[in-house]
């Protein structure tokens, strides 16, 4: 009674399944995602003063950060020159529990440092020009090389730096308009494992590339009555078309022909924003403001990778992202204790643009509540040292990235201290 399976002589040949026909479902992912502070991969840390008061800024025109938040407000800046610069430190703590399995993972602790530099110059009483350099999109995350979701993502570093020269004009101290051209430089570096085994382990893919993109920022600010300020700002979508990123495969020798190192084109949209802001100064000391920020996340529909060298295993892959547009309400308060010290508090709610069926560890996005506090110290007139702290709580969320059947629960918290300097004269 012999075992039946010993007489097999299967041979893979040209006639049946030659290796050339072997196609791996290579669903290369990738949202250039982030330890998203801000729903998807938007980072709204544009001014330490703003961070202290719930990230509002669309209707504020006290310093050069208005160039980015609303260029229409730049001409309302009182001083001839205004400079503002600073950086934040994002400390993300994200925990993942795989559904149905005895498995938890934590995001590797890394520090992300978005920064900003602004300068404005009042050329005439009504006309101002300025320059904004900051990091409104991008982020970096790592789950480690061996975690359970490594076939979706191991680590990702996506950065975008924008440079925005701007001009603003105001009419009769009531209406200010402004526009800026946005030049963006973006780079991406990502690693994921591929479920193709060889004696040395699993296969690997690295994609690394950079590109530039263009957009604009247009704003309107109105000061209808004393103390009241209304702002409206639209920042356009910027499409980052990486034409020639390098794709590097580490695969078994037998499959080198299927997965050659090649160039890959990938396009990632940096979504447009429409922000509305309203603020009121009750008196010299006390200010309250709200913002409603509408993010056109729907522009991130899918991520397409187009490999230049085509093989049966390698071609054009589109990975669904299917983000949804979202509105972020923000509230902030500022109180000038004395000429030396100003304090701020605020908060906001940032609903996740990611649908539950498309929740991806590349962007472990959950609905977030942000609580902020900040202060400015003025050692001398016109100069301030600004500090703020943002405590961002990601509400626990269970979801599946259905194209890869990766299901789990994410819970996150972010600690974000920020520091900055502002000088106006």
């Amino acid at each position: 009674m012999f075992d039946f399976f010993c007489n097999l002589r299967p041979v893979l040949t040209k006639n049946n399944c030659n290796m050339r026909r072997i196609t791996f479902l290579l669903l290369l992912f990738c949202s250039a995602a982030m330890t998203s502070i801000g729903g998807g991969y938007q980072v709204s840390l544009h001014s330490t003063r703003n961070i202290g008061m719930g990230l509002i800024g669309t209707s504020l025109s006290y310093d050069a950060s208005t160039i980015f938040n609303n260029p229409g407000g730049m001409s309302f800046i009182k001083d001839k020159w205004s400079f503002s610069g600073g950086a934040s430190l994002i400390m993300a703590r994200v925990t993942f529990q795989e559904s149905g399995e005895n498995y938890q993972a934590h995001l590797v602790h890394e520090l992300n440092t978005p920064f900003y530099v602004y300068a404005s110059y009042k050329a005439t009483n009504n006309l101002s020009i300025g320059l904004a350099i900051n990091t409104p999109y991008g982020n970096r995350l790592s789950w480690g090389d061996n975690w359970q979701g490594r076939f979706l993502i191991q680590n990702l570093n996506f950065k975008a730096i924008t440079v925005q020269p701007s001009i603003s004009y105001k009419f009769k101290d009531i209406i200010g308009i402004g526009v800026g051209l946005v030049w963006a430089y973006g780079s991406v570096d990502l690693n994921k494992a591929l479920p193709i085994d060889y004696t040395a382990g699993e296969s690997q893919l690295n994609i690394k590339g950079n590109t530039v993109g263009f957009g604009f920022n247009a704003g309107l600010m109105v000061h209808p009555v004393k103390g009241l300020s209304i702002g409206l700002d639209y920042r356009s979508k910027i499409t980052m078309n990486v034409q020639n990123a390098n794709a590097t495969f580490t695969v078994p020798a037998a499959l080198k022909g299927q997965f050659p190192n090649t160039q890959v084109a990938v396009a990632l949209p940096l979504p447009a924003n429409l922000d509305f802001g309203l603020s009121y100064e009750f008196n010299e000391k006390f200010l309250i403001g709200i913002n409603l920020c509408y993010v056109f996340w729907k522009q991130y529909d899918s991520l397409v990778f187009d490999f230049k060298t085509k093989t049966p295993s390698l071609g054009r892959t589109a990975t669904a992202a299917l983000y949804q547009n979202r509105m972020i309400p923000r509230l902030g308060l500022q109180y000038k204790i004395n000429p030396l010290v100003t304090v701020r508090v605020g908060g906001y709610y940032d609903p996740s643009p990611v649908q539950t069926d498309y929740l991806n560890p590349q962007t472990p996005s959950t609905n977030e509540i942000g609580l902020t506090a900040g202060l400015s110290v003025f050692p001398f007139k016109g100069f301030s040292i600004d500090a703020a702290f943002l405590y961002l709580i990601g509400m626990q969320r269970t979801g599946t990235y259905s194209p890869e059947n990766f299901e789990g629960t994410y819970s996150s918290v972010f600690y974000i201290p920020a520091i900055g300097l502002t000088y106006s004269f």
Partner: protein
Amino acid sequence: MKKLLFIILSLALFTSCERKISQFNADKGSANFTTYVSVGNSLVAGYADGALYHDGQVNSCPNIIAGQLELAGGGTFVQPMVTSNYGVAAYLGVQPKFVLGYAVDCQGVVGLSPMRSMGAMDPFAPVGYAVNNLGIPGVKSFHLIVPGLATMNPYYTRFATSMTGMVVDEFAKLHPTFFTIQLGDNDVLAYALAGGAYDSITPIPLFYYAMKNVLGAMLATGATGVMANIPEVTSVPYFTTVPYNGLVVTRQSLADTINMAMTTMYHLPFHYVVGPNPFLIADPTSTHPYFKVRQMKQGELVLLSVPQDSMKCMGMGIINAVTHMPYPIPGVYVLTETELAQIKGATAAYNAIIDTMAANRHIGVVDINTTLKALNSQAGIVWDGVHMTSKFVSGGAFSLDGIHLTPRGNAVSANCFIDAINQRFGSTIPYADITDYPGVIFP
């Protein structure tokens, strides 16, 4: 000092404050996993790549299940381990496992191909200890109630406690509290692997009688458990890799020549076109005076064991390159419509028996049939970013013998068992992590 304090404070900020999510809570429900015993054929034994070897056993479906059961009170799971990673010389002519390597075919084309590895196999010897995994390569359902099976099946000899007894006699000696049974596949598979030319399908009454006794003997020990159903042969790559119409005619002049030969010389009513054409197979029922052949029909299957060099260079499947006579594929390499209908009918009957028997005895059914069908679909099975299909080699789920699963395939199968266990006993056994288990290993 201040600096030190700063460092300590920042470290505290870094390491603390991790968000907590409650851990998976594995619960045994109404089952008792203390002593788990698995019963069945090669799929249970951990046979893979055409051999019973060490890593295959480590990644056997029951061993993966046992690893998960341990989280809910399961005890040690002992298997009759082979130490060699090439195989065990259970009987004369056993070859080491298949590995992927480069082979030159009759046309001089070098291709990646499963080939027998070169390595020292374990000599055949009984292991000398009691085992929880009673998986025996090659057994049909009724073999488990054949006295003296240990004298006939050397894989059983390796761990049999008696040379004269039956496999079902082993159950009580192990005092099981929980069992899984995956049996009956060979009752139809053996016939399918023989191309329907020899061997036979186990008659339904015998299958019923055997399963009843196997399950009865197990339940008599007081254990509870689950039993797997039987997949259709058409869902494994051994039968689905070579297409029925793999005869590709590249140019019209060649098609014309073949058509002329068929019609004018051999008086066979077969028409060939440029592109894929059905292979010619042996057909004893043909009314043709000389050539008992016919073209394959869609849905009929060519086995992976077919001599492919003969097909590629000698004209097997069409016209013999030397004699210029019609050269059919012998029936032993083909499953015809009629044979497939018999296999399908028997499989359905077996599964109906399994369903009824399980329902009557309050044990769970593991629907491996549906799982393998899903694997054989275009989309396959996707888990944690791993896309698996029934495609030979590239699909990642089936090992290089085209019948047995890879470690990754076994993990999918184990999760199918875990589903059935959780459903039947209200337990919460966590799934095995698919990504922990490799698929086909490439050179």
